[in-house]
């Protein structure tokens, strides 16, 4: 139980152990721990950043989708409007064409009628002239009575 030189031996051993630990054991392990700490912190930060980016991308995708939907709706409504317009135009044109045709037909009919009247008058006047010729025979000089005949023909018209 006595204190003796063992004490000195133990102290030397202890000093060597502490020196060795201080020099070769502690620094690398602490360095590794610190490095891992940084790595983990970096990883966590990167993960957070990634998540933030995903959120942004989702937001962007949503807005793009919304825009596209709006655009397509716009296009559809414009097309519908145009179609309606086309139909209206066609209707208008058809109506005009119909009216024009009708007008032309009426004009033709009028002309035909005038023509017929003219030719009928001529026919009638010549007929009347011949009949008067027949009746009067020599009594009427064609040149003398030209006035009267034409007046009569006019009255027939």
């Amino acid at each position, binding site marked *: *139980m*006595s*204190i*003796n*030189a*063992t*004490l*000195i*031996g*133990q*102290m030397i*051993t*202890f*000093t*060597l*152990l*502490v020196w*060795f*630990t*201080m020099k*070769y*054991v*502690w*620094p*690398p*392990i*602490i*360095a*590794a*721990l610190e*490095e*891992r700490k*940084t*790595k983990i912190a970096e990883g966590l930060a990167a993960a957070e950043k990634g998540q933030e980016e995903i959120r942004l991308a989702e937001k962007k995708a949503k807005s793009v989708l919304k825009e596209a939907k709006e655009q397509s709706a716009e296009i559809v409504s414009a097309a519908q409007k145009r179609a309606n317009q086309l139909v209206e135009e066609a209707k208008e044109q058809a109506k005009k064409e119909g009216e024009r045709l009708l007008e032309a037909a009426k004009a033709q009919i009028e002309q035909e009628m005038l023509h017929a009247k003219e030719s009928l008058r001529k026919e009638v006047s010549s007929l009347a002239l011949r009949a008067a010729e027949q009746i009067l025979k020599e009594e009427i000089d064609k040149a003398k009575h030209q006035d009267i005949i034409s007046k009569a023909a006019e009255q027939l018209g």
Partner: protein
Amino acid sequence: MASEGGATGYIVHHLTPLSVGEGFWKLHLDTLFFSVFLGGLFILFFKSVAERATSGVPGLAQNIAEMLVEFVDTQVKDSFHGRSALIAPLALTIFCWVFLWNAMDMLPVDLLPMIGSLMGMEYMRVVPSTDLNGTFALSISVFFLIFFYSIKVKGLAGFAHEMTCTPFGPKMMPFNLLLKTVEELAKPISLGLRLFGNLYAGELVFILIALLPPIVQPLLGFPWAVFHILVITLQAFIFMVLTIVYLSLACEDH
């Protein structure tokens, strides 16, 4: 395993160290051998981990070493407010070394002495912390460090002032000096005696249990061993924490 001399002889035999030399120059070979051997284990393990230490995924050995290092580092950061490259490695060495010393207590009391006696060694005491030389070697080294740090941080004059003028002012100088000297000396003595006392008593109880009839031995030996798992860890922890606290006090400037 009671040899000649009955129970008393057995106990005395177990507590006698294997030694060479006489008087002060007597060397306890078993204490020296086992503490160097355990220190070597500690160094080998930690050195191999330190060499392969990666910041990537750690292996089992690195995990264990990192757990210990972080545990010690936390204790140091909690108690020691200065910056020192020595304190933390010192604390780690103390904790691991003392724990390994104490852990020798868990081996069956007769195992190593029996192997030793087969190899011709008459005595063998396997737990270095049951040797006052072992525990005092640690605590006196710590005492020197306290002394060194006190002077380094406060300067020689500051240290002298603290020794003579506190706590009662310059008028009570001799009394202060006496009080502070006792206080400073009490640190290594209590540190060394606490560890020694606990482990010596524990070992003694193991030896006493070994004297009982074989049927009764496990009934007492098992609970005592389980209890001792706590004691050996706790004593190593206390030694380490007190070392940190003493050194932190030494580094504190008033």
